[in-house]
């Protein structure tokens, strides 16, 4: 199950941050997201460690904590997508397709002429789409 997703701009400014847990642990999740930004920078500046394919948008698992795994994705426009999950066994392909859908939703949201670049995404449609993607991710891995 995905517990938290985030979109972070090229100056590490938060564009969208949403947790999907009933419990009151949003602050903890945001802290994890915050910490993982350093890992993203590290991966990008030392590309040798990030696997065989250079400059791929999908960054793979950034780091595991006791209960969570953090995955990252970095676009050409230096926008970072982060995802925190509690699943222990996660297929790479699932995460890739999750991020692809996430990115498509983001592109549609920023193409809105009323969206101001660099500001938070306030679109309700975007929020609905993201929670839909998050829910479908859980059902795919469970099934």
């Amino acid at each position, binding site marked *: 199950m995905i517990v938290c997703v985030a979109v972070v701009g*090229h100056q590490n400014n938060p564009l969208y941050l949403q947790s999907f847990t009933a419990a009151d642990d949003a602050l903890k999740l945001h802290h994890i997201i915050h910490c993982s930004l350093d890992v993203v920078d590290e991966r990008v500046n030392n590309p040798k460690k990030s696997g065989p394919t*250079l400059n*791929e*948008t999908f960054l793979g698992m950034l780091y595991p904590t006791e209960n969570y795994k953090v995955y990252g994705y970095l676009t*050409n*426009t230096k926008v970072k997508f982060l995802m925190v999950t509690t699943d222990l066994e996660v297929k790479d392909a699932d995460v890739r397709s999750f991020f692809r859908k996430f990115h498509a939703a983001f592109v549609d949201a920023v*193409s809105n002429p009323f969206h101001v670049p660099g500001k938070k995404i306030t679109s309700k449609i975007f929020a609905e789409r993201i929670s839909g993607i998050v829910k479908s991710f859980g059902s795919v891995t469970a099934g």
Partner: protein
Amino acid sequence: MGREVAESCIDGVIIEMVSAYCNRFYGSKPELAARRIEAIGYQVGHQLIERYTMERPRFSDHLEAIKFICKDFWSELFKKHIDNLKTNHRGTFVLQDNKFRWLTRVSIDPSSENLEASQDSPVLTPEHKVEVTSMHLYFPCGIIRGALSNLGIPCAVSADISNLPACKLHLDFGDNKNFPPRMLPE
């Protein structure tokens, strides 16, 4: 598949936008009109590049990004590639399109001068015509500047139309980061 729009509608919208800014909104201030049109182009380019680079790996250097603009981005916009790309290896690139799609209907041919004079339409001097045509170039310049700056490459873009319908676009990255943020009319 994405939704499609007739090309003539796009042409019409762009021509109408340029004429609205130049004549109706900022009739007396062409510099201001140019900056507004360029700003619209900037936003369009900023949004388009996000969409068109979605399925590809990140660029490793500036040249790769410019090649992307010349090939993929250009064929998305104009269904053709840039015809010629030159660089002085010191931060200036010249992109040449021999048949720039948005200028193929523009004519500043002096032989049509007599025809126009006989009609009611106001007579335009050749200099004035060049000025009117150059107004149509602020939008594509803005698109390129917006696209590149969203890729993290700030630059100044200017256009040169000495022989229509060919169009030369000068991209200036300047090794210092202090070049003017907006293109200014010459």
